[in-house]
């Protein structure tokens, strides 16, 4: 029982660097010069800020959906392959994730730039050059590019762990390929889908550098807003209020995902 | 008295969060004995083993080893070694280093370690396997490494927690014989936990039958089989026909609508009892040999088991389980006979 002592250094660390900062956010969000106030929160819920928040959520939602639509087939196809090939290919799909996230984003900046590769290609085909960089589509593209592996991995993991006998049983019971997929494979892979969605959606809401590099600062997202409050304006009060709102949002979406996961789990269990 | 026994448990109880796992256990184990703790899962047999090994502290009661209270002796200082259920071989060590582990902890000289490990590997028929990795061994081989790893420390007592549970039937039979031979040769006390009554009957000197944390019966295999003390033991050790009955008087018992002579006495007159009859003790007779008053029934099912048939016979509303070497067919009328010494009388379960 003495072994619990081993966790003590980490417990202290946690208290200082995880727990206390959270309290600080709460403190600054609800005080002004030491006095309790709701002014920061009221400012945080201002229409202009809310607009930014809604834009961020909408963008994150579309990015997540795209990641799911593109990523699920990849994961599925990989999981149906021979073990060796699948392992190798899955490594290929994950390698870009190991590159610095800013470099990955920067690569698209290079591709999309007005004097960049894609535009040169268009012009050489005698087509008019397009404004590709600094558009909302570019930001969306950057998000999908960065977050796609986070969708593929959990789905792939769940699919490969799935017992092949489920599929064989479905086949045996007369289901064709499509029916097997929609009635057995998809429901059973829901836990993977949900964790993929969580891993994409939450970072996507709070993404920060992508909008600056690919959107050129023209599409202010919630992350940029918070940077402004803290680093430019040095306004800890309203910045903390924004963080607080963001945290509540994260907690809500986590709760929704957990619930969906539990339901998916139950559905999976029903299949047994 | 107590210096004669190797291990003694006095009034040992163990509770987990208010649930009693063991209740007032009194037990002693002799030097060189092969003692088996037998019972269904959840009966407390593994808890008892872990108390002896020192992994679990009893909630109350005393445990003595060679007359000394071991309450405050941690497992690594007890002269007891364990063969774990799933072997618990160290995956990062090869066979030799697994077996040598305990000796290295004791910092024995290298040459002696080598000698003793090799002797043990030879004993368990794994000579030349020292360099192998544990995962490369089959289940039976892993089992033997686990035994060697425990025995190499020359423990006073070897504790075995369902050690053959993971092996297939044929391998299990072979290992039973091997284990028993090893125990007799080394003269070490074995305390063996199993839920397999057949295993217990083949290997043990003494069997302790446990149920819900309470000892039901302690005795030699023959005693437990032939003279089960209650219906639970009778039912658990081999198959049995168990019927409610009434003791008419000494040596006379009534059940299933008839009165039979028996060899038991002392239950009083007109007292409710439970009657146990082993399937092999019911004799099947041709109808012609049964008197007008004899038992008869209709064969409900038959199952060929190799040496014998397992048949079910319905007689006066009770379905008898019978083992016989006579071939009969479903639907036949047959006669039955139960000799007095085949009828075991016990007090009814509370």
């Amino acid at each position, binding site marked *: 029982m003495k072994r619990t002592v081993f*966790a003590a250094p980490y417990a202290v660390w946690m208290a200082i660097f995880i727990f206390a900062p*959270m309290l600080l956010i709460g403190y600054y969000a609800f005080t002004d010069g030491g006095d309790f106030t709701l002014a920061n929160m009221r400012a945080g819920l201002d229409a202009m800020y809310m607009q930014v928040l809604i834009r961020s959520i909408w963008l994150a939602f579309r990015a997540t959906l795209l990641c799911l639509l593109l990523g699920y087939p990849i994961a599925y196809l990989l999981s149906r392959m021979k073990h060796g090939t699948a392992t190798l290919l899955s490594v290929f799909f994950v390698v870009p994730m190991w590159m610095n*996230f800013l470099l990955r984003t920067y690569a698209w900046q290079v591709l999309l730039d007005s004097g960049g590769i894609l535009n040169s290609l268009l012009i050489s085909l005698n087509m008019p050059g397009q404004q590709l960089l600094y558009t909302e589509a570019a930001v969306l593209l950057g998000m999908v590019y960065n977050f796609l592996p986070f969708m593929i991995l959990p789905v792939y993991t769940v699919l490969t762990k799935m017992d092949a006998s489920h599929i064989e049983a479905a086949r045996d019971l007369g289901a064709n390929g499509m029916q097997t997929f929609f009635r057995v494979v998809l429901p059973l892979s829901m836990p993977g889908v949900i964790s993929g969605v969580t891993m994409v959606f939450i970072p996507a809401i709070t993404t920060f550098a992508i909008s600056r590099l690919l959107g050129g600062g023209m599409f202010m997202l919630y992350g940029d807003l918070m940077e402004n409050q803290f680093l430019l304006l040095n306004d800890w009060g309203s910045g903390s209020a924004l963080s607080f709102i963001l945290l509540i949002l994260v907690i809500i979406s986590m709760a929704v995902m957990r619930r969906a996961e539990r339901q998916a789990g139950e559905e999976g269990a029903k299949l047994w | 008295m107590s210096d004669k026994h190797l291990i003694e448990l006095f009034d040992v109880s163990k509770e987990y969060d208010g649930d009693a796992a063991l209740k007032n256990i009194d037990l002693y184990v002799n030097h060189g004995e092969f003692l088996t703790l037998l019972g269904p899962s959840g009966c407390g047999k593994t808890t008892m083993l872990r108390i002896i090994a020192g992994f679990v502290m009893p909630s109350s009661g005393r445990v003595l080893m060679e007359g000394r209270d071991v309450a405050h002796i941690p497992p690594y200082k007890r002269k007891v070694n364990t063969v*774990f259920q799933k072997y618990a071989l160290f995956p990062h060590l090869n066979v030799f280093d697994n077996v040598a582990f305990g000796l290295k902890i004791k910092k024995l000289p290298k040459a002696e370690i080598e000698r003793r490990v090799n002797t043990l590997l030879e004993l368990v028929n794994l000579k030349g396997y020292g360099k192998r990795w544990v995962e490369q061994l089959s289940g039976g081989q892993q089992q033997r490494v686990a035994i060697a790893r425990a025995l190499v420390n020359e423990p006073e007592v070897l504790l075995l927690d369902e050690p053959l549970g993971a092996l297939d039937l044929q391998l299990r039979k072979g290992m039973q014989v091997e284990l028993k031979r090893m125990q007799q040769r080394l003269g070490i006390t074995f305390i063996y936990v199993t839920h397999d009554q057949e295993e217990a009957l083949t290997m043990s000197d003494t069997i302790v039958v446990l149920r819900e944390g309470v000892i039901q019966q302690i005795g030699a295999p023959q005693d437990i089989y032939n003279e089960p003390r209650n219906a639970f033991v009778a039912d658990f050790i081999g198959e049995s026909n168990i019927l409610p009955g009434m003791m008419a008087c000494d040596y006379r018992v009534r059940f299933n609508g008839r009165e039979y002579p028996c060899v038991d006495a002392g239950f009083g007159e007109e007292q409710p009892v439970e009657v146990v009859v082993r399937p092999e003790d019911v004799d099947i007779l041709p109808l012609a040999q049964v008197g007008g008053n004899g038992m008869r029934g209709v064969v409900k099912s038959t199952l060929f088991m190799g040496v014998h048939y397992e048949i079910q016979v319905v007689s006066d509303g009770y379905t008898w389980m019978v083992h016989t070497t006579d071939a009969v067919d479903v639907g036949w009328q047959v006669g039955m006979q139960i000799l007095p010494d085949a009828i075991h009388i016990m007090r009814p379960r509370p």
Partner: protein
Amino acid sequence: MVKRVRNFFKGTYLGLMLLFLYAPIAVLIVYSFNASKTMGNWTGFSLIWYRALFGDAMIMRALGVTLSVAALSAVIATIMGTFAAIGMHSMKKGTRLVIENISQLPVVNPDLVTGISLMMIFAFIGLKDGYTRLLLAHITFNIPYVIFSVAPKLRQSSNELYEAALDLGCTPLEALIKVVIPDIMPGIVSGFILAFTLSLDDFVVSYFSTQGVENLSIYIYSMARRGINPKINALSTLMFVAVVTLLLIVNIKSIREERAADTQRRKVAKKTA
């Protein structure tokens, strides 16, 4: 026939997706060897950007910061995280759940909030040194990942192994060092690698929590904001090659081991059959 068509589509889809993932990287690599500064036109092979990269003292300093912070934070986080996991493993369920949930915060929290909250606490306690801030921040977000890689191994390693060591005469501490830690070593190693790469990759937390010190991410960000810079192309190429080499080494090793184990198993199976 149908099957072949289907396979063709499957292959095409995977190929397109790989193209999508790799094309930007490939372009970066190709143009890092371009003599011209503008990306659109290729004016010939050249290593000037590599020379410029290594001549850039700022970038080299940033690289040094990134590597040393990654190494230091990964080592410290691995040690602290492993012991924390071991400690938490033997806790009562209630206490353990509380600690587990709090330590999940940096994982669940958006990086942005983690970075900002760390910035606030550093300012609050008056820690000014940018490098120390960076290091503390990276340790903080690394530890949970170490715990998450070690804890499942601990759960797998079953108490039986630990008990077997005690049974064979180890004191609890000896059992920990000789049996438990070797048994969970794969988890510790993968925790370390994860921590190291997370630290290399991090931008958001670093950007907010530190001041006055630039690691590579921060430096790239400040350069990329001002537009394309071929020096970054060269840097990306080098980093990509390094990552791929590292991954190949790790993967080939594990594939080989797997294959060796596989043949062994088959041999054993044949023998026992």
